[in-house]
């Protein structure tokens, strides 16, 4: 009954918004702006939400939320454009998308890949919204099961994934790249005791390395060098290609889409981590579940769908702890929290009493935003693909300027540029020598989380690892990690096959 009533209020909210032309215009405008933000290397959804917070100061809270959620949804999705077309993920959330999206674009199927990600992102946002509207109090209770041990295990799981990513040469080169990423994550003052590690006395290093300059350096610069030096045309676009994915393809991929959406909501709901990690975890899970994991990394549409569904589903997930506990579930959500407070809405457990319909309004906006994103995405994809027809030596220097100004715009630090170039040059050589570059980025994103939470967890348990086995969520995470590691060995697959044969024979 309760759920039905909620849906009733939800749809009346929805109808009110659909018939409000100003609101719709604002929604489409901000989603479009978000896509631009996401697609530009360096500009992130967080920055977009921060910008619009100032611009929407004078509006009513509900109207402002349309703009803010619109740019959030668009920003997370927009990262896939540059990730697929030029192999430079516009945001960390889209880094996993480039693994299979770019090979697809190289095969001339960039348009199809964009169509798939657009649809997957829309479905992801939609699923995330369903969770907000239906069982968000339940999920926020589960999110409260996350103590330091769980955070550590989650980060560790993400790092483990880096070993399972396809390496073009020796398998353990992925691990080496991951460890180098973890080293970069260590640089700076440590989060627990504030002890400076590997800072060489440079004040700019004390705050640690930021993810965006490393991401752009590691993905963008090797691509610029490679294209200019070796004269290869990065990806090409077929003259006539279908953008709208076939209905059959979506139905066939439905299990992947649903799994990824659930992972996205789950990761989003865990306080403090968000889209950046959701894409990777979902990609890793899709690869593990796939019947032919070897095709991942060579242009498998499942990989693209997995990461894009998850990072957009994450938005709904991140709203759950934000609205129910007042704890932001992701970095852009942290900015949303500030924006809400500016408008006199204080998110938290009392929100349901202070502003009874607010959560439903948010979900209605999310639903509309996912539609707006899908429509805009379908219209844009066809045009964006044409970018690939520009001769690369003319195009790449412009990309270089964008990379530079993008990583500078994040905090106005020229030092970020000084950092980006050496990281990029090293990444170029690593790529040339057959090291996958994605694990390095995962290491930088997850390193601080793993480091601090492991030590904090041990501090709380006074050096004991027992909580891993006594806390239910920790135990589940631990088992998933063990399974992931074991499944890497051929022994496991052989054992599984043997088991299957045995069972069949007995029947």
């Amino acid at each position, binding site marked *: 009954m309760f759920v039905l009533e909620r849906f009733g209020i939800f749809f009346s909210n929805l109808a009110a918004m659909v018939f409000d032309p100003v609101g719709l215009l604002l929604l489409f405008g901000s989603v479009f702006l978000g896509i631009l933000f996401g697609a530009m290397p360096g500009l992130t959804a967080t920055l977009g939400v921060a910008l619009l917070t100032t611009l929407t100061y004078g509006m009513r809270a509900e109207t402002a939320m349309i703009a803010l959620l619109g740019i959030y949804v668009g920003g997370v999705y927009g990262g896939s454009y540059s990730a697929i077309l030029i192999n430079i993920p516009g945001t960390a959330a889209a880094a996993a998308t480039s693994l299979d999206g770019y090979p697809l674009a190289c095969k001339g199927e960039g348009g199809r890949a964009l169509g798939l990600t657009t649809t997957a992102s829309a479905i992801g946002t939609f699923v995330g919204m369903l969770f907000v509207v239906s069982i968000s109090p339940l999920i926020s209770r589960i999110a409260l099961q996350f103590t330091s041990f769980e955070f550590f295990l989650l980060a560790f799981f993400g790092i483990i994934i880096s070993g399972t990513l396809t390496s073009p040469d020796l398998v353990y080169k992925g691990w080496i790249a991951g460890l180098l990423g973890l080293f970069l994550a260590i640089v700076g003052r440590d989060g627990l*005791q504030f002890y400076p590690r590997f800072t060489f006395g440079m004040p700019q290093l004390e705050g640690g390395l930021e993810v965006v300059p490393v991401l752009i350096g590691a993905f963008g610069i090797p691509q610029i060098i490679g294209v200019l030096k070796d004269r290869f045309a990065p990806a090409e676009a077929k003259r006539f290609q279908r953008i709208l994915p076939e209905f059959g393809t979506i139905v066939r991929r439905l299990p992947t889409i649903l799994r990824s959406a659930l992972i996205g909501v789950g990761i989003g709901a865990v306080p403090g981590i968000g889209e950046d990690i959701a894409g990777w975890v979902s990609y890793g899970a899709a690869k593990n579940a796939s019947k032919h994991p070897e095709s991942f990394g060579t242009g498998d549409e499942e990989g693209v769908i997995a990461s894009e569904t998850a990072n957009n589903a994450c938005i709904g997930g991140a709203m759950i702890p934000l609205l129910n506990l007042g704890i932001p579930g992701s970095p852009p959500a942290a900015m949303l929290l500030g924006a809400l407070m500016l408008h006199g809405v204080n998110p938290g457990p*009392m929100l349901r009493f202070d502003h009874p319909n607010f959560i439903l309004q948010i979900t209605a906006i999310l639903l509309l935003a996912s539609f707006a994103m899908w429509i805009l995405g379908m219209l844009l994809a066809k045009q964006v693909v044409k970018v690939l027809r520009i001769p690369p030596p003319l195009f790449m220097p412009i990309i270089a300027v964008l990379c530079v100004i993008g990583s500078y715009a994040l905090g106005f630090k020229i030092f970020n540029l000084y950092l980006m170039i050496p990281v990029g040059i090293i990444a170029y050589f690593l790529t040339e020598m057959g090291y996958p570059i994605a694990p390095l980025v995962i290491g930088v994103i997850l390193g601080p989380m793993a480091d601090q939470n492991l030590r904090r967890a041990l501090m709380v348990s006074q050096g004991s690892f027992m909580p891993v086995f006594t806390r239910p969520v920790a135990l589940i995470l631990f088992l998933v990690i063990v399974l992931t590691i074991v499944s890497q060995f051929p022994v496991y697959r052989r054992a599984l096959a043997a088991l299957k044969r045995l069972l069949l024979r007995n029947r």
Partner: protein
Amino acid sequence: MKRIAMLVVLVALLSVSLVFASGEREYPSRDITNVLVWSAGGGTDTANRIVMAEMAKTLGVNINVVNVTGGVGGSVGMLEAYNRPHDGYTIAGLSESIVTAGVQGGWDKRVDVWDYYIIGGSPLVLSVPANSPHRSIEDLVAAAKSRPGQLRASASAAGSIHHLNLLAFEKGTGTSLNYIPYDGSAPAQNAAITGEVEMVITSIAEQAQLIRAGQLRPLGVLVPQAFTLGNQTIPSAFDSVPGLTAHLPIEQAIGFAMARGVPEAQRSKIREAFHAAMQTEPVKNFGRDNFYVLSGASGDEAAAIFDALESNFAWTLWELGAARVDPQTLGIPRP
């Protein structure tokens, strides 16, 4: 030929711009930038954004808030703001914790080079999880004394105002706690709700929702006056432990600053706009809804507050061994 013509035009334009630039126009004639040293969405950020939006109405130009984070005690943002021309078009959005930048090696002078404008702050409160057996400060102190160094207490990172209050609480009550640092107030409170820690110190603004929902039980505020939150009154911790008055209160001071090098004429314009903004409805509502105690201090009054904070923070960190630079070399007096 075309190139040379273009060059001539450009040089001419440059010289024109020089003429314009030298001509005095009334301040402020272009947008002002607020370089905010903490990340977007936090308390300092939110308070600054709302006050800037109100000040912009008085000043007639936009004030853009940009978050320049990193370093120690917001040093990267402070340097960025301080190194820009002292022409009145740069403001630094900051809070009390910037006074630690000096002793941590991120800022090579005292912080009195800034002219401060204090928006206010939220009183700090000591809370325990809802299912905790401790019902009062006395209970908690007794429990802490029975297991010295064992009672797990959370606060945001080492050297933060929450940490300093925790230290002062330890000194004032003669207890020793097991301080577990977190990345910020939200994770610290989260740890208290999940039961990972047994007590937490953050501001009322940050805890209000959790207290009202009954997920955290406030034991006492760390200021002399009791605080009324909705229909419950949180007593002052000073009532039950008189020894605290020697070490507390150390209060939040959220606001912004302008370099003292900026001509007084321009600073006084900003001061007027600031005082006007503090009287507006949106700012007052913001303070009330979010449990801030608004201050509005500026000039000498604000300078005295930051002086006191600086010597307190700097020497406490130095005694903890967490400071890199001797406060003496910076000329910071002992508290």
